């Protein structure tokens, strides 16, 4: 309860445009949001950028938060930031495909870079489909109620529940497999 009161005070400070309140918000949520971005992208550099973008966006949008679960609202913004990134990435990839020779050299470079960076879990997560992966990561890092996650994704609760269940089961099977 005291934690909730503290958070409420911090949010009031943020709405007033107080930099130190935002700083406290960063300290509270940077790790979880970073984990969320990292597990979805597998890249530290991209996660750094997305985390920065998220918090700068919060400055612009904090006044649109009208109460309710703050984590739910925060991760909704985080999810939008991630999807904007994905759309931009897809655009860039389409542009790269137009220049065939360049794409080959760049793709090889990217693959080598990713390989060095990702851990075992990251590699296994990469074997799940994008949508399932996102449900698992959103649920784990946001810690918001499942009903809220279904609402955030605008899909029936049974669908989201089934994706999470099958996804986590599959992830466990993949993790148990030897390399």
């Amino acid at each position: 309860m005291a934690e909730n009161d503290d958070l409420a005070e911090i949010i009031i400070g943020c709405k007033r445009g107080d930099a130190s309140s935002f700083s406290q918000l960063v300290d509270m949520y940077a790790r979880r949001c970073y984990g969320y971005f990292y597990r979805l992208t597998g890249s530290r550099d991209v996660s750094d950028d997305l985390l920065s973008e998220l918090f700068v966006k919060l400055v612009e949008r904090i006044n649109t938060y009208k109460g309710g679960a703050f984590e739910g609202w925060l991760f909704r913004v985080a999810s939008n930031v991630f999807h904007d990134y994905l759309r931009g990435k897809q655009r860039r990839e389409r542009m790269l495909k137009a220049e065939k020779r360049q794409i080959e050299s760049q793709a090889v470079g990217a693959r080598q870079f990713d390989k060095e960076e990702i851990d075992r879990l990251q590699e296994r997560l990469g074997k799940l489909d994008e949508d399932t992966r996102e449900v698992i990561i959103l649920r784990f890092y946001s810690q918001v109620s499942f009903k809220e996650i279904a609402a955030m994704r605008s899909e029936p609760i049974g669908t989201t529940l089934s994706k999470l269940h099958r996804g986590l089961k599959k992830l466990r099977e993949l993790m148990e497999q030897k390399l």
Partner: protein
Amino acid sequence: MNGRGEQEFRELFEKFLDSKEAEQAIEDIRKGEQILIEHPAPEPDEQVVGNIKAEIAKAILRKKATAFRRRAYKAVAIAAAVILLIAVGVKLFEKGNGEPVRIVATSIIPKVVWESGHLADEDADLATLTAEVEEIESEILAVKFGENGGNGFTDLTELEVELEEINSSFWEG
């Protein structure tokens, strides 16, 4: 998965599955999430966090500057509107100093003529005017088609003068 989360899952799964299957599903989720707990994601560098805080400070300044500009523009617009209102008010006040002008609306056509079904029959002057206008009209047409054999331009000027005379004498009564 904490106690609250587990309870939520149990309630949800039991809507779709029987209790044994629901229990199995919860167990699958618990084990799956345990993998995520055992493999924590890397944390952001302190430098990255520091940079983010600096970015936030800049963004706050930008936001405040924008809000200030918006308020200033609004104040200027309101001031301009107030000045305009005052100016219009003063102008109206100046005009309003004299006696109010009384406007009387009346018809220049006599009531009998106005209500008559045959205007020319009811009013002798109007009958004369109608006859003269008709005559001039036929003369104009004759000039136009060159039937009268005269000088078109001079004839037209004469007709115009004649029309003027008729017009003024009619209104003089």
